[in-house]
């Protein structure tokens, strides 16, 4: 009995509960498996495929071939293997998705937590800046950042990251404002805890769930934003096989050679869908109202 109790206790921390709920969710688990496969493929591709010979080298003799055993997804107008290019391109989308969201989560949460906890003038200043930032169109901001820092993977990450800072700040602020007035904060104060101790050990851990849900959801939209910017020629520069860029190149051949647009599109869709499924799973697992 005692042993059993111990075992039960181990799982019943908040995160243990969340993991349990998440595992119950079939869609989320499928998403997790697919997303893991995409990550593994992206990493393997970096090691197995040779950038110069297999990804960017022009072989005009083999241009615009249909799918075959030699070229699983066919070739593009320069004779490059679309399958290899998609595999190799996966890491751009993942990197941008993850890094951009990391940037916006960290920056947005810090701002939101400060605004929510301190209130007053600081809150007003931070949140009004967020209000100014949020209506700026993604593309416009990306053009500005690309112009300032040059067209590169880094500036794309920053552009996509900066765009979602306001939404993180809002979510974090709202979460902190509910936590701030809880009695255990007052109790911690009555025990002599300093403001910093309270923020670190009480406010942040308790405001984390909504921020984490937001982060997972935002990975998908960051991947889409990145692809969209590359499609417009503002993202990862050619000849690098960014999925959005590949779509853009392929649209001139959409009537004669659909492989060039179809497969990058599918790749984006599968990745984004799997991330969204994970995001839904995380949200459901953390929502106390859905607890059974």
């Amino acid at each position: 009995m005692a042993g059993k109790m111990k075992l039960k206790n181990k799982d019943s921390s908040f995160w243990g509960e969340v993991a349990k709920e998440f595992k119950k969710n079939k869609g989320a688990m499928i998403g997790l498996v697919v997303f893991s496969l995409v990550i593994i493929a992206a990493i393997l591709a970096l090691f197995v495929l040779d950038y110069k010979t297999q990804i960017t080298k022009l072989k005009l003799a083999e241009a615009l071939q249909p799918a075959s055993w030699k070229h699983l997804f066919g070739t593009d107008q320069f004779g490059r293997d679309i399958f290899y290019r998609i595999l190799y391109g996966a890491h751009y989308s993942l990197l941008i998705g993850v890094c951009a969201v990391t940037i916006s989560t960290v920056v947005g949460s810090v701002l939101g937590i400060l605004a929510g906890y301190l209130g007053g003038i600081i809150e007003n200043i931070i949140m009004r800046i967020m209000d100014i930032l949020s209506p700026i169109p993604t593309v416009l901001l990306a053009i500005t950042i690309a112009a300032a820092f040059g067209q590169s993977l880094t500036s794309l990450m920053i552009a996509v990251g900066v765009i979602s800072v306001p939404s993180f700040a809002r979510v974090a602020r709202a979460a902190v404002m509910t936590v701030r007035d809880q009695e255990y904060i007052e109790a911690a104060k009555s025990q002599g805890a300093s403001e910093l101790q309270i923020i670190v050990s009480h406010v942040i851990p308790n405001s984390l769930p909504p921020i984490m849900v937001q982060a997972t959801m935002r990975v998908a939209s960051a991947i889409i934003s990145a692809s969209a910017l590359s499609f417009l020629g503002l993202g990862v520069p050619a000849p690098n096989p960014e999925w959005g860029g590949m779509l853009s190149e392929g649209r001139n051949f959409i009537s004669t050679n659909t492989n060039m647009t179809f497969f990058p599109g599918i790749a984006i869709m599968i990745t984004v869908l799997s991330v969204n499924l994970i995001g839904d799973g995380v949200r459901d697992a953390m929502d106390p109202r859905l607890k059974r």
Partner: protein
Amino acid sequence: MDEKLLLDLKDLVVHYVTDSGTVYAVNGISLKLNQRHSVGLVGETGAGKTTTALAILNLVPEPAGVIKNGTIHVDGNNVLTMSEGELQKIRGKDVSMIFQDPMTALNPVFTVGEQIAESIRIHEKVSDKEAMRRAVEMLEIVGISASRANDYPHQLSGGMKQRVVIAIALACHAKLLIADEPTTALDVTIQAQVLELIRSYREKYDTAMILITHDLGIVAETCDEVAVMYAGNIVEYGTLEDVFNRTKHPYTEGLFNSLPNIIERRSKLTPIPGMVPDPTSLPEGCIFADRCSYATDACRRTAQEDKWLSDTHMVRCSRYQEPNFNVKRKIER
């Protein structure tokens, strides 16, 4: 009276300034408490009991709450003029508070052991391991087995959570314990256990206590002195004997008369008529006059002053001076 004065609260005035008007929460109360003694703060909701308690920790919620006047000396030092750093040193170490609702006073994402250890680490430079060892020890003192230290608050029952809250408050052996309705959220049997726990702990460590409650029974069991609060004033103050057996203020009388009668079970409760005055606009004369069956015109015109009947017994009512004036207690104790 050779015991050391631990808490000396003088002329405390606390207002909450809001957009819809100023709430006169505490209007000039004075309170003294010696080491090892306990005082019960009794009164209706909104009488200013909790505000007084928070003021002792200088934790009146800002920016609305403003301490307008008064001094609060804890162990000789004025809490109201201390810097934030000095305050953090005495909070939890010298003065500790037990909160009313154990359901919300614990952080849901940490184990109860960690939460007790945290309050030890705030005040004492000890290793994490040592803090945890002492946390487990505290849990055992409050009657929770050591194996529950790794439990999260939601895995404990209400009574156990309140024990944990008490363990946190007592972890650093504070000299003054402020218990803000520590048993209100608990059922009666657990109430008795929790009170017994506090009592035995206080005996062991010579802790003074301010007990905030609206349960006169609890006061009778645990306190040495009683302060009856009404609309931000102490209307009657004295030893248990003074207030319970020589009741002088009509409001205290009303409180006693609204208790159920155990002997005559069919007798009706006698509530105090009317409502607590709106704390944004208190009446000009005696604050209790509107609900007082003894009130005279003079009562309504002039505010009452503290009148000391003896060294220990204070009442804020002028009518007791009249010959043949007695409040009518329903049950004779």
